[in-house]
């Protein structure tokens, strides 16, 4: 009897479950559906705390939730109204006055005031918050003459005042967070002022943002944005194909190629504001530098590299075109000058005649001019009995850099330069760089929307800071200060371009390529996929400096909306099959039992 009872319980359970399934299937097919944009990513966010951001999607979530004082224009990433509608600067460029939008509200309904702006900046200055301090360190004092006006006084005239990537926080929330909890405060749901509000984070699964209908620049078309975090690239791509996700990015090249020409899916490969480069050790220890920067007392760098002719020879022995084609399968732009082309206003585009291309013969000639020839015919050039043997560090954490190392080995051999390549971890590489214990390395940089940061890494002042070459060119460093203070954009662009020319001709870096970002999205649910910056060739949908890509999306107007959640869940069929099987099993058991009892 016990068995029969158990079987009965099972049947009841399954029937109940099936009922729930069909009920569920029905309810999800009816009613007005929310308009949800689903974004797939292979990195989880770090949480909702704006002071503790590492992974890229975290910044995207914060960008949508908080506003900046001055935003980036979707057209060309130039300064555009953020929380501030307008601003002006004094004649001497030391006083900046920002006028806030009077309609701006926090997600909890309280008005955004100058108090909030001043509080945010002051807190970052007081706590020296690493993520933001570089943007605000030039500020000397902050005043709030009225509720909608903020006045900053700076130490030097500075164009950076219009590109401060600082999320403006509500004072009424953050004043209750003590300084030692700044980085651990959970901050959920986030109270910001942006077009969306981050409300829920499921670790390793998803982050949910809901639209802010009272957004002061107009309510977004979308109801929700959900970031979905996949542990696996292949699965993420399959999820795009079956419609579990609407947009994905950062797709490995091979998978990206498999998505091209798929029906209902569009792909885009767009330049990212960053590059991959070969850097040299150009450190020359001197008592002043050791004293001022705490730089190492010695260097193991090969002194031959200090000769700009040798570095130029090496540039001629590297084929940027080939690296872009082979390593990135063409999804990038061959590299040249320091400011990436996506920062169109500041990027120095070289003439054909100025480009140090790929020409082994030219490379050998330049080496000869520098005094390096192969006197003993062993295949490697030498000078004063010394062979030219260089060390190259590539990153074990980045497969591409290892591949690039192999290409360079072949080219150097042709040019007669000895090379020993070694793959090491990023940590070991960082240590080697700060100890000046290297000849060359391959690594990359990401740039802000403003060129200031990427220009700063080559200045003398960044020794033991961002500098990884110990390159120090006085003209370059002087012009770096100059461009900071040039408030006229055209004048500044001219200075920035001149700086890039100096750097390109002296070769502290040899830039391989500007990597592309890959993205793909479904075309059956939304229209208005906007690539920003719109003047770029092309821009990107998401993960750009502007939120316009999200705000421009609207439901597909032509044709039927995709049939989502309709029909019967397959679980119903499986449930029914299980019920059938259970009934059959019960019957068999009963029949058998009876016959067994008959015999016993």
């Amino acid at each position, binding site marked *: 009897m016990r068995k029969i009872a158990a079987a009965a319980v099972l049947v009841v359970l399954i029937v109940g*479950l099936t009922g729930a399934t069909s009920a569920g299937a029905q309810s999800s097919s009816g009613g007005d559906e929310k308009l949800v944009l689903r974004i797939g990513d292979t990195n989880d966010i770090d949480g909702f705390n704006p002071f503790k951001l590492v992974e890229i999607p975290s910044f995207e979530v914060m960008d949508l939730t908080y506003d900046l004082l001055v935003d980036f224009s979707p057209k060309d990433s130039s300064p555009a109204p953020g929380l501030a509608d307008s601003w002006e600067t004094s004649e001497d460029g030391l006083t900046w006055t920002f006028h806030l939008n009077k309609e701006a509200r926090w997600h909890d309904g309280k008005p955004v005031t100058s108090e909030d702006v001043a509080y945010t900046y002051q807190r970052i200055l007081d706590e020296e918050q690493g993520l933001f301090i570089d943007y605000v360190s030039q500020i000397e004092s902050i005043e709030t003459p009225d509720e909608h006006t903020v006045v900053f006084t700076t130490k030097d005239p500075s164009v950076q005042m219009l590109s401060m990537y600082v999320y403006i926080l509500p004072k009424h929330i953050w004043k209750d967070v003590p300084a030692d909890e700044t980085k651990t405060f959970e901050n959920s749901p986030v109270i910001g002022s942006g077009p969306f509000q981050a409300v829920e984070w499921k670790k390793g699964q998803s982050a949910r943002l809901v639209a802010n209908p009272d957004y002061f620049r107009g309510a977004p078309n979308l109801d929700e944005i959900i970031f979905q975090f996949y542990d696996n690239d292949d699965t993420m791509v399959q999820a795009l194909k079956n419609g579990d996700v609407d947009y994905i990015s950062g797709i490995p090249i091979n998978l990206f190629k498999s998505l091209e020409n798929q029906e209902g899916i569009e792909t885009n490969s767009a330049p990212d504001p960053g590059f991959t480069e070969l850097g040299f050790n150009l450190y020359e220890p001197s008592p002043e530098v050791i004293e001022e920067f705490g730089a190492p007392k010695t260097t193991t760098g090969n002194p031959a590299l200090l000769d700009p002719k040798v570095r130029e020879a090496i540039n001629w022995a590297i084929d940027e075109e080939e690296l872009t084609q082979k390593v990135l399968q063409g999804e990038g732009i061959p590299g040249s000058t320091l400011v990436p082309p996506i920062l169109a206003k500041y990027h120095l585009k070289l003439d054909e005649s100025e480009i140090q291309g790929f020409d082994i013969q030219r490379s050998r000639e330049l080496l000869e001019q520098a005094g390096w020839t192969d006197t003993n015919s062993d295949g490697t050039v030498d000078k004063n009995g010394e062979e030219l043997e260089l060390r190259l560090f590539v990153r074990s954490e980045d497969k591409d850099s290892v591949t690039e190392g192999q290409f360079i080995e072949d080219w150097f051999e042709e040019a007669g330069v000895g090379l020993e390549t070694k793959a090491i971890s990023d940590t070991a590489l960082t240590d080697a760089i700060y100890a000046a214990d290297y000849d060359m390395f391959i690594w990359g940089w990401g740039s802000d929307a403003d060129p200031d940061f990427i220009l700063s890494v080559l200045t003398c002042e960044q020794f033991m800071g961002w500098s990884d070459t110990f390159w120090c060119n006085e003209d370059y460093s002087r012009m770096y200060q100059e461009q900071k203070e040039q408030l006229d954009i055209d004048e500044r662009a001219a200075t920035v371009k001149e700086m890039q020319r100096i750097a390109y001709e002296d070769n502290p870096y040899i830039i391989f390529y500007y990597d592309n970002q890959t993205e793909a999205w479904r075309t059956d649910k939304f229209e208005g996929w906007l690539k920003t910056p719109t003047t770029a060739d092309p821009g990107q949908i998401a993960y750009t400096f502007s939120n316009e890509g999200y705000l421009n999306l609207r439901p597909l107007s032509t044709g039927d909306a995709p049939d989502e959640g309709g029909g019967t869940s397959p679980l119903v069929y499986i449930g029914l099959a299980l019920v059938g099987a259970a009934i059959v099993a019960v019957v068999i058991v009963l029949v058998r039992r009876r016959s067994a009892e008959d015999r016993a």
Partner: protein
Amino acid sequence: MLVLNFFLFRILPGDPERTLTRLQRVSPSTIDEVKKELGLDRPLTVQFFDYLGDTVRGELGISYVFSRPVSEVIGSALWPTILLVGVATIGATVIGTLIGIWGAWRRGSPVDTASLGFGLVTYAMPEFWLGMLLILLFAVALDWFPTSFMSTPGLTDASAGLLLVDTLEHLFLPALTLVLALLGEYALIMRSSVIEAMNEDYVTTARAKGMREALVLRRHVVPNALLPVVTLAALNLGFIVSGAITVETVFSWPGLGQLTFRAINGGPDYPLLQGLFLLFSVAVIFANLAADLLLGLLDPRIGRA
């Protein structure tokens, strides 16, 4: 075990202080600061005794990657794993055992050959590949089941029934992958165990009494043949908590396997890995104990010995 756990992870390549400052090239002074914060500037022996003391007090430390207590991080990943691996183990045990009995009963017949072949193939198949094949079939081609996660992201204002159904839909593919990967082992062991038992004297006796073959199988063969399968299932239960790293990664299932993957990838995250491996070792030890006790209950001979 504690000693091994501590030093094992100190040998792993990678530095936690670099992990915390990822994507930024940070100046040495910042790195020193982070080191100090984490207590990594002190000698290894001091760190070790700190770790011993904390573990005894039940404090597993703070995860580097998640900035939350390790016990909390592990706790939230425990139930998804128990659900997935639990369902899969039960499914695989039941189905595998039935296939094994059937194959042994009809030994040498096409049914036996087919079930044996099926068991061997699924047993040998890499879980990653099997999972991707199931995704291609059930999620992309047929569009019956979702590709990833434990529930539809953003499904919050649904009724309990709907949430249950949603979770079951998400559970189906990863559980099926695991069932397929595990059942071969059970089928093979059950088959040989049944065949062995069928040649025992008591079975011959039962047959001689004139009992029907099906009854012989059910009353005399299967109960005896089940013993090794029970051992296997109990031992496998110990590995339930270590999750199924591959399957959880393919389907982005938020369990302990995924957590292990992320702890290694994002770091290494020593405190989290130490906590996880402590849990895994304890689980295996308890499962061994449980297997012994269970066998004692099922098989009177062992209890008496």
